[in-house]
């Protein structure tokens, strides 16, 4: 079985304990933080395991790359401390089971774009930006063969990821890709962060969607007309697993003439969409999630955003309606980029 590479020594010598002291959902001082993270590492119960909002942010806050969130998710399962009710876990675990036959494997021998479990969103990968890259997982009936499984971190079911992810990687590798552009940054995080932290072999080169979009926009620079929109970016929890790629958000906005509005909840301080929070067991989760969403959107409004840009389809589904009701247009990043090169974005409604 794959084991998490977590080194408690690093926590002992850490001076900031940023993983927990910077947590947006718990008030924890440095001394308590160190004590609790070491307790968790030893496999002991900790209030952190019960209170965790599963926002992934501590993965980014840890300056040693010691994977505190993977540790929390693993120990939640080990100690039977589930952040969500039992039926929700069963539902989620069942959700990722492929049930419509085997995938049709075609050897691509070139770059592929893995749209993973979002086959119904293929309209977001159309147009010139995607010339030369072959999409895989476009068949809704087969999409769960390409589903990175990382969402089970939200459910305290790390074992499901360890069990299924290697098979998913195997399926993708059968297409013989030279590189795999990951439509969702959760997939990118799975292949570059989770797999590395657990010693799972990834026999292809994952490419972050934004890095891909940025490079394509540079190639198509002649076609770009500034969009002249004030934009807010809804950073998804999974981008905390690849913080080194977050800079492409700003680079893309600069390139296409989108003005990133000055917000309180931005970059490392971003608020998650709260989709994972509303179903949690803790009392007040539903209401708390709704309040957080409102706080997030108010911040966008205050900053003068006209458009809210999403990467994660789950964030879009959770927050898109609230954003729209507040007079801000929700849009996927690829659609904004298509707009910049004079195409009509498919999801621009």
């Amino acid at each position, binding site marked *: 079985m794959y084991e998490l590479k977590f080194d408690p020594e690093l926590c002992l010598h850490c001076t900031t304990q940023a993983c927990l002291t910077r947590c947006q959902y718990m008030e924890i001082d440095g001394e308590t933080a160190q004590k609790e993270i070491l307790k968790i590492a030893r496999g002991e119960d900790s209030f952190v395991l019960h209170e965790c909002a599963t926002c992934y942010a501590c993965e980014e806050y840890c300056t040693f790359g010691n994977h505190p969130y993977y540790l929390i998710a693993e120990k939640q399962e080990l100690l039977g401390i589930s952040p969500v009710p039992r*039926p929700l876990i*069963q*539902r989620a675990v*069942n959700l990722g089971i492929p*049930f419509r036959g085997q995938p049709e494997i075609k050897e691509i021998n070139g770059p592929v774009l893995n749209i993973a479990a979002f086959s119904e969103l293929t309209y977001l990968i159309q147009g010139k930006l995607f010339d030369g890259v072959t999409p895989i997982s476009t068949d809704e009936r087969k999409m769960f063969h390409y589903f990175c499984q990382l969402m089970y971190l939200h459910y305290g079911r790390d074992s499901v990821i360890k069990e299924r992810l290697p098979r998913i990687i195997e399926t993708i590798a059968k297409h013989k890709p030279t590189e795999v552009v990951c439509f969702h940054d959760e997939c990118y995080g799975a292949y570059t962060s989770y797999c590395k932290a657990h010693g799972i072999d990834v026999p292809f080169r994952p490419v972050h969607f934004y890095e891909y979009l940025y490079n394509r926009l540079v190639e198509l620079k002649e076609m770009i007309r500034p969009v002249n929109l004030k934009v807010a970016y809804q950073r998804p929890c999974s981008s905390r697993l690849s913080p080194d790629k977050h800079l492409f958000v700003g680079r893309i906005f600069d390139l296409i003439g989108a003005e990133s509005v000055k917000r309180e909840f931005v970059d490392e301080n971003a608020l998650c969409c709260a989709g994972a929070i*509303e179903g949690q*067991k803790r*009392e007040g989760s539903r209401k708390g999630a709704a309040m957080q969403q409102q706080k997030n959107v108010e911040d966008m409004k205050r900053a003068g955003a006209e458009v809210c840009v999403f990467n994660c389809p789950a964030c879009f589904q959770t927050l898109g309606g609230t954003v729209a009701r507040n007079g801000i247009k929700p849009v996927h990043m690829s659609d904004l980029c298509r707009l910049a090169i004079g195409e009509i974005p498919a999801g621009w409604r």
Partner: protein
Amino acid sequence: MDSIYQSLAAIVDAEHVSDRPEELYIYSFDLGTAEPHRPDYVVSPETTVQVQEIVRLANRENIPVVPLGGGMSLAGLAVPLRGGILLDLKRMDRIIEVNEKARYAVLECGVSQGQLTSYLERHHPHLTHSEPGAPPAATIVGNVVIHGQGDLAHPYGFNSDMVNGLEVVLPTGEVCSFGSCAVGASWFTNHPMPDVGLFLGWCGTTGIITKLSIRLLPAKRIRGIGRFVVDDEGLVPEIFYKLTHTQMAEDIIAFSSAIPPFASKLQHFTVNIAADSEKELELKQQIIWDDTLGEYIKRGDGAYLGFTRSLERPQISKTSDYKKGGGFEYVGSIMPIEKYPECYRRGREISERHDIPYTVTGRCIGAAHSMMFAWTYAFNRADPKTIEGARNALHETDRLVLELGGVIWKPGTFGQKLVLERLDPNTRDLMKKIKGLLDPKGIMNPGNWEIP
């Protein structure tokens, strides 16, 4: 060309009558497992007078008449078991009146659910109707004739409870009106006229409803669906009970199905909530999810799955995609809510015995006074063996409904026989007398609800 064909053509014009084999074939079956039977003629009238003339002709010539609405019952109720004239009523599709203040609509019998929904959305956005889970082509009259229920069944009951008045062509050709319209008043109420109750639930065996007044209900500005899930079917009745106590929901449905896998062995609830403001919506959400179901969430026995704005009609028809060949039929029943766990468990057993992925659904009617519980079975239309398998499963389920103390909803001929075998003999005799009185020649939809 035969004389009956010519007589029909004289009534409705030649464009709207046919005896061509390819058209008779289309009308010989419905989408379920019922054996096909061809009509001799298909005719599509446009007016009540034409319906009258057709029925008089049928009476004279002793030919069966089978009225057809959207043809969506799935139970073979409009399959012409003894041939005769298939009366396709879709051309009678006028929405005659919508009374905004008294909240009712007067419709012709061919008006479809989708037609009324879009008409109200466009012209009367403050009004809605209780729309069933059937495809939009199902007709309003077809639904009340079978005692259907819709997405307002929790607050308002069966759709047939919302009838304000009827115009009916009797099997002998006379036209009768029922409700306030019968005394020359408008179509605003069915009460307090003496109860004659001769047409609803009779599946077109006692007459042809040509006009209907149906109650419309308030449409709130925001309508959406909240979802909840439990893994213990034993919790479903008490959750139904608690949810109905809040009086905050428009529709409450529980379901479970083997496919897609996320729904397997779990009981999902969809709870439709409507509000005119964000404040009202949040209040209702708080009462339903936090105050009423919060205890299940805290214990870890139940989970809130979020709220989506806009309504999605329950689509049992999706079951048709579970097996190659796209066929499905279901047994519906009206059951006490407390029977949900047994209905679910026994239904799964039947499905598994017949190698069909199980699908069960329970919709709350009234304040948990009963539920419509349905067991759906998929089959391959091109494979007689799977059709036979589904038919056997349906028949087993018909027996199960009665064994569990429920009543089969819109039974096909097999289920009708089971019901009639158990029916109070005096009631059966009365039904026979009524049928004989209204339809002395037995021409109306023969083969259905026949009492020997």
